[in-house]
């Protein structure tokens, strides 16, 4: 063990580490994005490539990130610039690692906005604010929160209070340290999340059938039951498997759900020692996340929404986006539950409460890479580091609260939270497997492991995973990135906001590049002295 490792914090317990890692992975995407993607890509048809992608992209990337992180931690590096530089002694490696600072920080800023909405909706559910609203009323209720120029329902200050409150709670948790803050949050938040989700799953799956007007697409015509939702989720259309769109959507979902390509898993893994079993811990983390997503996430929104709106209605709602599913359709379902106001309130508290815990256990991990980078490279105290990061995040987040409805958040979500993840994953895979070397990478993964990774995973990690990432990047560039860059479909009045949001992102990236340059110049001066 190096001197650098000895002076670094450590995880308090193995179970705490796994829960924190799983908490990082289990996020809003498990309960909102997954059902939306499944519905939008043919239900059962989506599930087959989903499981294949889990095996050939998800789990290998999980191992790679744990390996990169622990190796970096052994060299006293808790963020990607230092980790990449430890693996590849080339001047460019540290700049490639900037992606591992940029992505988590940018995602943190807007993710906390979405997280603050789940907190707000938990309170609104408790207060019965959405009781009796119809679909249009529910849409207005959401639009009024997200669009400050159209605040007919909520006071203008409400989104600000929830956003800054959520951001402050995140930084407060991180300020309590690795085992006293992050690990403790995971130990409390993860069981609550699973209990709430399990109760809701039982309630949803025992719902009586509902008569749905119009072409509902259910087994008994217009009488729809939760089983119709499960039928839709698990009946594959073999012909549709030939569509590359379904495969890329499934691979993309695996990416988001496991939080790979973000820089935060590596930061958590940097606090491991050579004796920790990253092979088994990686599997346990991925499996816990998949249980939350497939067993719980897959049995909540879709069966519930299909019961009340029919298969065709659920597909139409999902096309409107994850928020339409989670913040409009689900409260409508809760309003229709037998049992009156108390059951509606409890269901809403549990649904939005579990989303909040899923969100916060992920967002605290996004603070860790930048915190580690600043503390390790500039010698700043935790208080000073978190104070500065909070100030910057709050200033940047202000624009999300002000301009969310005009495409500001969507732009950040696409470039940092979608496209950027694939780039970082590809870069780290190339550095760890190809440059550091497949044999060295394989050896590093097995340090401290109680089991060996099956041999067929070695060619998968070396060739198949990077190839999949390259295909995904080329496809997304062609189909999504270029039209997004050209602002295809963006209303004329929103274009200045979208351009401004891009400039702010570029500004963040430039500042981080400059900081990395300064950090290495500082190291060089110290080395020369």
């Amino acid at each position: 063990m190096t001197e650098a490792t000895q002076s670094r914090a450590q995880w308090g317990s193995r179970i705490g580490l796994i829960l924190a890692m799983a908490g990082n992975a289990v996020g809003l995407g498990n309960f909102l994005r997954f059902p939306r993607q499944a519905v939008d890509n043919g239900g059962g048809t989506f599930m087959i490539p989903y499981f294949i992608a889990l095996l050939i992209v998800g789990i290998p990337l999980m191992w790679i990130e744990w390996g990169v992180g622990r190796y970096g931690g052994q060299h006293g590096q808790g963020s990607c610039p230092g980790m990449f530089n430890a693996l590849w002694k080339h001047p460019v490696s540290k700049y490639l690692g900037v992606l591992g600072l940029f992505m988590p920080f940018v995602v943190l800023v807007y993710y906390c906005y979405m997280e603050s909405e789940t907190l707000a909706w938990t309170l609104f559910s408790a207060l019965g604010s959405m009781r009796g609203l119809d679909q249009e009323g529910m849409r207005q209720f959401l639009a009024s929160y997200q669009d400050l120029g159209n605040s007919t329902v909520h006071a203008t200050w409400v989104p600000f209070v929830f956003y800054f409150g959520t951001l402050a709670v995140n930084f407060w948790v991180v300020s309590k340290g690795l085992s006293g803050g992050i690990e403790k949050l995971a130990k409390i938040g993860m069981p609550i999340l699973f209990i709430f989700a399990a109760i809701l799953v039982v309630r949803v799956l025992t719902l009586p059938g509902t008569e749905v007007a119009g072409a509902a697409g259910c087994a008994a015509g217009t009488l729809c039951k939760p089983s119709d939702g499960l039928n839709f989720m698990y009946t594959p259309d073999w012909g549709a498997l030939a569509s590359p769109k379904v495969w890329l959507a499934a691979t993309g979902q695996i990416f988001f759900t496991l939080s790979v390509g973000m820089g935060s898993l590596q930061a958590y893994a940097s606090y491991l020692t050579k004796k920790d079993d990253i092979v088994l811990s990686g599997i346990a983390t991925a499996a816990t996340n998949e249980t939350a997503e497939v067993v719980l996430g897959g049995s909540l929104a879709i069966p519930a929404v299909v019961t009340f709106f029919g298969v065709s209605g659920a597909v139409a709602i999902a096309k409107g986006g994850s928020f339409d599913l989670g913040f409009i359709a689900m409260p409508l379902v809760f309003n229709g539950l037998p049992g009156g106001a108390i059951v509606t309130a409890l269901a809403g508290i549990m649904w939005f409460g579990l989303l909040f815990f899923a969100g916060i256990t992920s967002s605290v991990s996004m603070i860790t890479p930048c915190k580690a980078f600043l503390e390790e490279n500039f010698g700043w105290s935790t208080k000073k580091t978190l104070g500065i990061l909070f100030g910057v995040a709050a200033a940047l987040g202000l624009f999300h609260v002000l301009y969310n409805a005009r495409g500001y958040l969507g732009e950040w979500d696409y470039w940092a939270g979608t496209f950027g993840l694939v780039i970082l994953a590809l870069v780290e895979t190339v550095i760890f497997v190809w440059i550091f070397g497949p044999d060295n990478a394989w050896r590093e993964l097995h340090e401290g492991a109680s089991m060996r990774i099956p041999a067929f995973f070695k060619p998968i990690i070396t060739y198949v995973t990077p190839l999949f990432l390259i295909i995904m990047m080329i496809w997304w560039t062609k189909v999504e990135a270029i039209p997004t860059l050209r602002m295809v479909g963006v209303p004329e009045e929103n274009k200045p906001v979208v351009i401004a949001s891009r400039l702010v992102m570029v500004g963040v990236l430039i500042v981080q590049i400059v900081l990395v340059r300064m950090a290495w110049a500082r190291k060089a001066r110290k080395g020369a002295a």
Partner: protein
Amino acid sequence: MKTTALIFMLSAWTFVLGLTFWSFKKLMSTPEEEKLPPPGSIP
């Protein structure tokens, strides 16, 4: 619920739940290394 859908769903659930329980059981069965707080670190 259709039989094919039910089989697919149960297979998917068995796979993820089985993997979760197996990995946790195996992790918990290996003795945990005793960790002392590192010098200078915030607990």
